[in-house]
């Protein structure tokens, strides 16, 4: 193992900085795949490296060497990681694994609960209209996903705008978008450095559905207006605990089209989505995509290389035998 072993620990930092610009510059479908996959690969790679570093401390303990019939002389002479680094890595890995397990449990129970609720909703159709003054609309993940729209939301929108809303939610349902956001969230639980990547994934999934709705209705301006009016109607309605969602989605994206005064405070995701629809669709930007994919691949490869190195070291130490 040499210094490349630390690359998977550094690259999540870069990903955290790059997530938001990438979410704004790449077409949302591409960005969603890239961000979710990067989050998973980087979380796995960084956890693997922490594990390997911790193991290097373990194999220097004499009785571990005795049990494994490996040469302690070889393991302690051929490894660059110092004992404090290895112990720190072990502690970090323990925290990360605990957090990831907890997140997995919470996400799984929430998904199962939502799936059960989706099955229990009245009617057989995909769309359920609920009698509720508060304007709201969402997709419940499940098999199949169900789309819930309140009467308040229906009243707030014109007929073409409703088509936008339904096309948007159907894109979530048929594209199984919750899998991307769930994967990114779990990765961020294992490696908190990746939180901005998970946040950006939540945003690009919405943008993806927005673009789909714009394509279905054939009118980007209409789609933008539907989102803006729905958001204003939701906010005007009696308060509901949506603030958590707002902070979870965070302020992603910058608005090119708005005045300097507004730019001082970062606009939230909804104005960014509206602004993006008022601009022409984004080009694929293959070079940018290639660079991002390459960096993630480097992280994965260096974790793999470190694992192979460590394996080779163990085999060598085993060949030499206990000293």
């Amino acid at each position: 193992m040499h210094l490349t072993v630390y690359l998977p620990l550094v690259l999540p930092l870069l990903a955290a900085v790059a997530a938001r610009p990438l979410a704004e510059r790449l077409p949302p479908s591409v960005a969603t795949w890239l961000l979710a996959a990067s989050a998973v690969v980087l979380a796995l790679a960084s956890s693997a490296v922490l594990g390997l570093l911790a193991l290097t401390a373990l194999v220097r303990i004499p009785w571990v060497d005795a049990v494994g019939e490996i040469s302690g002389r070889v393991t302690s002479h051929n490894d660059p990681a110092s004992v404090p680094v290895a112990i720190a890595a072990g502690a970090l890995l323990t925290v990360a694994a605990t957090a990831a397990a907890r997140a997995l449990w919470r996400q799984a129970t929430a998904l199962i609960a939502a799936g059960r609720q989706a099955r229990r909703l009245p009617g057989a159709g995909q769309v359920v209209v609920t009698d509720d003054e508060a304007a709201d609309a969402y997709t419940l993940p499940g098999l199949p996903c169900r789309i819930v729209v309140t009467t308040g939301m229906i009243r707030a929108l014109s007929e073409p705008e409703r088509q936008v809303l339904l096309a948007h939610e159907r894109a979530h349902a048929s594209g199984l978008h919750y899998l991307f956001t769930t994967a990114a969230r779990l990765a961020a639980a294992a490696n908190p450095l990746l939180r901005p990547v998970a946040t950006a994934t939540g945003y690009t999934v919405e943008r993806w559905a927005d673009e789909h709705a714009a394509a279905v209705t054939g009118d980007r301006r209409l789609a933008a207006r539907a989102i803006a009016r729905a958001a204003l109607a939701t906010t005007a309605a009696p308060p509901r605990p949506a603030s958590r969602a707002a902070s979870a989605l965070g302020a992603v994206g910058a608005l090119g089209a708005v005045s300097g005064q507004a730019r001082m405070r970062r606009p939230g995701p909804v104005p960014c989505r509206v602004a993006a629809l008022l601009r022409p669709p984004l080009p694929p930007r293959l070079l940018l995509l290639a660079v991002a994919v390459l960096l993630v691949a480097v992280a994965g490869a260096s974790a793999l290389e470190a694992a192979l190195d460590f394996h080779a070291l163990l085999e060598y130490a085993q060949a030499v035998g206990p000293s």
Partner: protein
Amino acid sequence: MRGKASQARDDAAGRRAAGELEAAVLAVLQAAASPLSPGEVRDSLGDHLAYTTVVTILSRLHAKGMLDRSKAGRTYVYVPVADEPGLAARRLARMLDAEPDREAVLARFVSGLSPTDEELLRRMLAEPPGATGAG
């Protein structure tokens, strides 16, 4: 004036809290296989509510026609009335509000707006067609 306004806000908060409790109680009864007594409801809720609070909520829900009740010994036992679609869905929404990761699994059409966002959106809607697309 200010006093009155803050009073109104407190009242709104109180009502909301009561609404959430009602939803939680409904959820417990909905999940139960058989009619429940107030004591059983309280135990299922598990957040140290006073017995009288639970009784109050149950009678309020009964008065609203959302629960049926029958005598069982010295106390009443409660069941949710047969589902009417609107009620079922409303209850669903409230129940999900209580889930810790609700926002994580729901794909909501629009998330909440900050006052700045609201202002921004109003300005975007007000602008004449073609004026915003340039940036």
